[in-house]
């Protein structure tokens, strides 16, 4: 119990140290540039304490529970003994299907739980005055990440070059940008960066590096990274698709209403 407390105190100190430059920034600008007292100081301080405490608890929980578990399972699923037990060859990409399923499910579930995405979804809901539902946005992004991670693990197993996938992804984004409703483009672009943060990154990094070590003929330095890049690209595509779908739906509803009016 004492060790546990000590560990938490350390994580709290690290979190504080990490947040320090931001506090310095806020204080400096409020006092020396804006020359104003910080508005609602009590609330800001309370919020800051909550954020630091919450983040520390969150990281501690991640380290204690989810991270090791995800790591253990990634190694177990790419373990030769596990794959050969089902009578498949180690060199065949189809033998690793549990990895793809696992990657997709982990991508979906961690994205749904992602604090940054929740924050941005709430913001988007407020700003769009309700046209974008925070839940709809979160599910769309999560589906994008799920598909991205399944494809990304497939890439690691097959050892195909990363840039080909990314370039094709960029092409799709560019084409979609031309046709998607303009007001949602920036939001869609942002949702790509938002998905991959403190929950997803360690889990996904562990998965990719473990996998590239386990599959024969793969080099972790070349093949191990790239999953996070996939996870930040595909949500852009799905959110742009969501935007196109919503505008199409609105148009159909409008036509229907006009018909009803007649």
């Amino acid at each position, binding site marked *: 119990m004492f060790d546990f407390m000590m560990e938490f105190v350390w994580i709290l100190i690290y979190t504080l140290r990490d947040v320090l430059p*931001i506090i310095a920034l806020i204080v400096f600008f409020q006092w020396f540039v804006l020359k104003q007292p910080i508005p609602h100081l009590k609330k800001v301080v309370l919020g800051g304490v909550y954020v630091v405490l919450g983040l520390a608890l969150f*990281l501690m929980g*991640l380290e204690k529970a989810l991270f090791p578990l995800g790591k253990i399972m990634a190694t177990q699923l790419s373990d030769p003994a596990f794959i050969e037990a089902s009578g498949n060859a180690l060199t065949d990409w189809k033998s690793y299907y549990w990895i793809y399923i*696992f990657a997709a499910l982990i991508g979906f579930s961690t994205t749904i*739980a992602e604090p940054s995405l929740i924050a941005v979804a709430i913001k988007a809901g407020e700003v769009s005055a309700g046209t974008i539902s925070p839940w709809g946005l979160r599910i769309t992004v999560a589906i994008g990440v799920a598909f991205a991670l399944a494809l990304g693990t497939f890439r690691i197993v097959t050892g195909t070059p990363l840039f080909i996938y990314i370039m094709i992804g960029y092409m799709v984004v560019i084409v979609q940008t031309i046709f998607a409703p303009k007001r949602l483009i920036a*939001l869609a672009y942002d949702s790509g960066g938002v998905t991959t943060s*403190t929950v997803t990154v360690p889990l996904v990094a562990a998965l990719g590096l473990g996998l590239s070590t386990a599959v024969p003929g793969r080099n972790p330095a070349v093949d191990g990274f790239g999953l996070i890049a996939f996870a930040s690209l595909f949500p852009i595509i799905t959110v742009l698709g969501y935007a196109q779908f919503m505008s199409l739906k609105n148009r159909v509803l409008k036509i229907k209403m006009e018909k009803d009016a007649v």
Partner: protein
Amino acid sequence: MYKAYILDISKKLWAAVTDLIPIVVVVVFFQTVVIQQPFPEIGEVIIGILFVIIGLMLFIEGLEIGLFPIGEAMAYALAKKGSLFWLLIFSFALGFSTTIAEPALIAVAKEASIISSDAGLIENNQNTMKTYAFGLRLAVAFSVGLAIVIGVLRILKGWPLYYLIIGGYVLVMLMTIIAPEEIIGLAYDAGGVTTSTITVPLVTALGVGLATVIKGRSPLLDGFGLIAFASLLPMVFVMAYGLFWF
């Protein structure tokens, strides 16, 4: 008053619980059905999950009452002050400080230094690895700061976002041609890693706050998009960093 507060807290607690259920389901399913092995250290795992739930709840509550309002208030005040110089300095400092503080980036940079030294790309000693990892973080933090500055300029000038994004894509593709093979995966990943738990809410607040203040800008059209830059430029900078090292 207390009643309302307790109701609010329990609502947030429930939200955090529902957010975590999918993860727990995936993990339990794979452990019991696919891998068919008993849970390792189940007690610690349960405590850890409790920590995650409470941490998530506190974090969101803190963002809503603290960081979001101050971020928006500062962006508002700086835009009203009308000093472009201070606004840009603020933008750079915000991007830089939130990125250097990013736990996910710290973890990935360390991992990358281990992998690079294992592969013989950099010297295998503690000092070189530390320098490499810290340099990587500096390169990323600098590029995020720069990206936020460009993004803020975009909001001010009203440039269409997609021009810049597509331009960025072209830059990434060009860099990919000349960058060493071993840095490409890491560089592409750096884009996603940078924009994490602390950076995203603050930077989004800055963008939305700015777009709300400036006449003729819509928060939806112009306020978002800062994060997209912040995940694009690090790719270019990390590839340049790779050119420098390998």
